[in-house]
Every structure is written in C-alpha cells, then in structure tokens.
C-alpha cells in the first residue's frame, strides 16, 4: 500500500468481487488504497444504500464503481446519486478500468478520470481465438 495514495472511489458489487478487484489493483499497482471495496453480501436494499452513504461520507470520495448495471449496488448508488450532486456512478467495472483510474492524477476532475477509465475498460475486452 502506498501511504501517499488517498481514497478516491468506492468499488461496490457482488460477493467477493469488490475485495478481489481492489486486491488485484494493489498487487499490480501498489495503489489499492485509492479504492474502498464494498460488498452487497447479506444486505438488503436500504442497508446497501446506507452503507454506500456512510463510506462516501467517511472517505470524502465522489465516485462509485459498480459491477452489474442491473445489480443492487448500482441501484443503491443511483439512489444516492439522486440526492448527491457531483457523485459519479460507473457501472461494469473491470480491473483494466480501475488500474487506469488509480493512475490518473488525483487532481484530475472525476468526470474526466472516470471517462478515461470507462474507455480503458471497454478497450480491454476482447475475444481471442486461434
């Protein structure tokens, strides 16, 4: 963990995926502490939403990455976004997207760094056949 890297986003989703993604970012970049994992396991709709609100307030971040566009974490993040101006929700998160995000200048506007991350995530998907 790089002690100079401050939290910049929440990674929310199903099962162990958020922890796994953050762990992988840490392993590859050493910047895992830029991301706060949040799993929906065992949580109802209201608890997912309140958990996200608590983490956003605690860490002072304004970006939430989620996995499934139709998943409970995304719906909760969108509900939070409804009354949180400036909050950015990025769905379909991947390791490639997160790695680009954590390497973006922390001073870069979140809208710009998340847009870049989305493009990197899209570009990393490929089907390879021999």
């Amino acid at each position, binding site marked *: 963990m790089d002690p100079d890297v401050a939290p910049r986003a929440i990674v929310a989703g*199903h099962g162990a995926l958020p922890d796994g993604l953050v762990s992988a970012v840490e392993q590859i970049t050493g910047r895992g502490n830029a991301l706060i994992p949040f799993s929906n396991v*065992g*949580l*109802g*709709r209201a*608890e*997912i939403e309140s958990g996200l609100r608590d983490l956003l307030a605690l860490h002072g971040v304004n970006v939430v990455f989620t996995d*499934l*566009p*139709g*998943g*409970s974490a*995304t*719906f909760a993040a*969108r*509900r939070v976004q*409804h009354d949180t101006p400036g909050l950015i929700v990025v769905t379909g998160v991947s390791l490639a997207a997160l790695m680009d995000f954590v390497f973006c200048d922390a001073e870069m506007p979140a809208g710009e760094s998340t847009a870049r991350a989305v493009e990197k995530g899209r570009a990393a998907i490929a089907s390879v056949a021999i």
Partner: protein
Amino acid sequence: MPIALYRIDDRLIHGQVVVGWGQPLDLGFILLVDDAVAESDWEQELYRLGVPPSMDVYFASTSEAAREIAKYASDRRTGMVLTGTVEAMLQLARTAVLPIKAVNVGGIHHREDRTQKMRYVFLTKGEEQDLRSMAELGVVVTAQDVPSAPSHSLEELLRGCMT
C-alpha cells in the same frame, strides 16, 4: 402464459432476478409490485435502466396488481411478479383476482427486528405469521435464492436452514 414466478425479494430488481432467474426462465417481463415505486417516476426509470432491452418492467401498487393480474397472466411472454415485502405478497395472495399457487422467498435481508432463518432470509415474527397465513390460503411457499440452489419448504425455512 401463467406467471412463472411470484417472488419476494427486498432488493426488488437486481442481479439474481434479472440474470439468475431471468435467463433460465427466458423472462419477457417483470411486474414490480410496490406501492412506493408505483408512485415514483424516477424510481421506475431507474429500474427500467437495469434490465436488458428484451425485458419489460411494469409497475403497480399492490391493489392495482391484485385487480389486473389476469392481464399479465394472459401475456404470451414469461413473466415474474416481484414484491419487496412478505406483507405485499400476502395482500396480493388474499385479493388477486387469480389465485396464486406458489410463492418463492428469494431474499429478505438482515434488519434489527429480524431473526436469521437462512443465509438469505431474515424474518420478523410478523413476517413468519404472514408466510403461514399465505400457506393457509393454499399457496405453496418455498425459499430459493437462485434456480441452481435447493428449494426449501416453508417448514424448513421457519425452522431455520443454513444451506
């Protein structure tokens, strides 16, 4: 086509519903029965964005759904009726113009006043009684979060079953 699944899930539309059940059932639509969501255009838009283009989502209050369930049951596509609470499903079972034969308890999560019964089901005493009342109406109540998981009877659910 009869409604393929009546499900109680406090997360309403989410991954298990859209993908876990939606794909194997080849769901064409979801009828989301929730009084609050039925009143909120914004919430409805949110849920519409969360399903694939091949799937429709309709919204109804509990009383509207009870009155209009036959219309949805006659749809040629496979459909799911989804409530967020046991109470709403019991009301539907009591008042719907068509009888509900079976109800799937898919996810009722932790809350202060609930006791854990299964990995994904926590119930208050009132909810336990409501499920019993549903069974007394002739509804077969089972618990099952995803199609590949075992289905548990109401007796197993109320007794507690951590699989």
